[in-house]
């Protein structure tokens, strides 16, 4: 039910659904990581990548079919991804949107960018996307408020936000 509202663009329902889902995803990720003999510390990576994938791939859910198998298939895919990557020790964490935003601010002084990963993350977002992410993420502004604050149309805010999410997912998976 919630997913259907979410697909129709109801942000509140969407947020409720994803928030309710996060603990279950976390438990699932921990179980898989521990079963693979890994540290459960990467569980939150799996949770975040899964949430992003659920969002960016929501067009692959067929509303005529049950939601749960779709969600778990995506979670499993992302867990395997994280396992494979942590096996190679090639870590590209989003580790913290907040950290990332702090880096984004520091970007004004290039020498302040210590971490190569953070540099790549920041480089992957352009100024406008960064502003939007910052407004929505840090101050919890709605799309409408963000638009007013940044003198952008609502549509432009949505586009910037959507692109930013895609880029985050790409940087995460890369």
């Amino acid at each position: 039910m919630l997913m259907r509202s979410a697909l129709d663009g109801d942000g509140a329902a969407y947020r409720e659904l994803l928030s309710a889902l996060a603990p279950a995803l976390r438990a699932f990720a921990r179980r898989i990581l521990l079963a693979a003999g890994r540290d459960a510390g990467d569980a939150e990576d799996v949770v975040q990548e899964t949430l992003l994938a659920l969002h960016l791939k929501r067009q692959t859910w067929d509303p005529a079919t049950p939601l749960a198998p779709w969600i778990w298939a995506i979670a499993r895919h992302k867990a395997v991804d994280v396992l494979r990557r942590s096996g190679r020790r090639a870590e590209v964490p989003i580790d913290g949107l907040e950290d990332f935003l702090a880096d984004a601010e520091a970007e004004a002084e290039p020498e302040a960018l210590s971490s190569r990963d953070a540099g790549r993350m920041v480089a992957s977002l352009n100024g406008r996307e960064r502003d939007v992410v910052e407004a929505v993420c840090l101050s919890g502004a709605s799309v409408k408020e963000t638009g007013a604050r940044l003198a952008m149309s609502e549509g432009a805010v949505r586009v910037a936000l959507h692109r930013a999410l895609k880029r985050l997912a790409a940087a995460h998976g890369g």
Partner: protein
Amino acid sequence: MTPVSAERERADTEALIALIAADAAPRGPSLRASLLLALGAAVLVAAGVMQWALGMRGDAAAAFLSSARFVFKFAVTAALAVAAAHLALAMSRPGARVAGAAAWLAVPALLIAGAVALELLAVPEPAWSARMVGSNWLVCLTYGPLISLGPLGLLLLALRRGAPAVPWRAGLAAGLAAGGIGTFFYAAHCPDDSPLFVAVWYSLVVAIMGALGALIGSRVLRW
């Protein structure tokens, strides 16, 4: 991991959820709709390339009415295109049942096997090899893939919106579908109608496209 950093990470996740929820515009077309659109465009492109590069054979209309062999070429390639596209869709949907969709590939396989059997019964043995080699296999192997390339690109583009558990397999299915579409239109030019010819050379074109689809798919369909 310390409790503090775990808490920190959960806060990050909440921030991410807020970000995603703010992006909750009504979703675009379903994956099925995208794929259907791509199939429609692929048919137009394949028809255009075929007409531009080769043109239909002169007796196409008459052959369609009088030759079961000619009609069969369209039936088997269309069945392949539909079954493979259906499989590509199932493979690109997390949690969808793939085995049932894969079973539909048996339809074109049985069609070709049955047609070959009938042809072997209908044609005396000394003529078999001539029918199989045909008069135009090099053109088939050149233009079959050429006509199929546009469709493959369009199908892969649509499938990039998908989420295949095994990207190369979804790419393979897309390649088979593209090969089905390409050979469907090539068939309108091709003067060789024997199922023996189709079983060898059309299959080879489809196999080439399948391999190409798998190769490209393993790169571009990852998510």
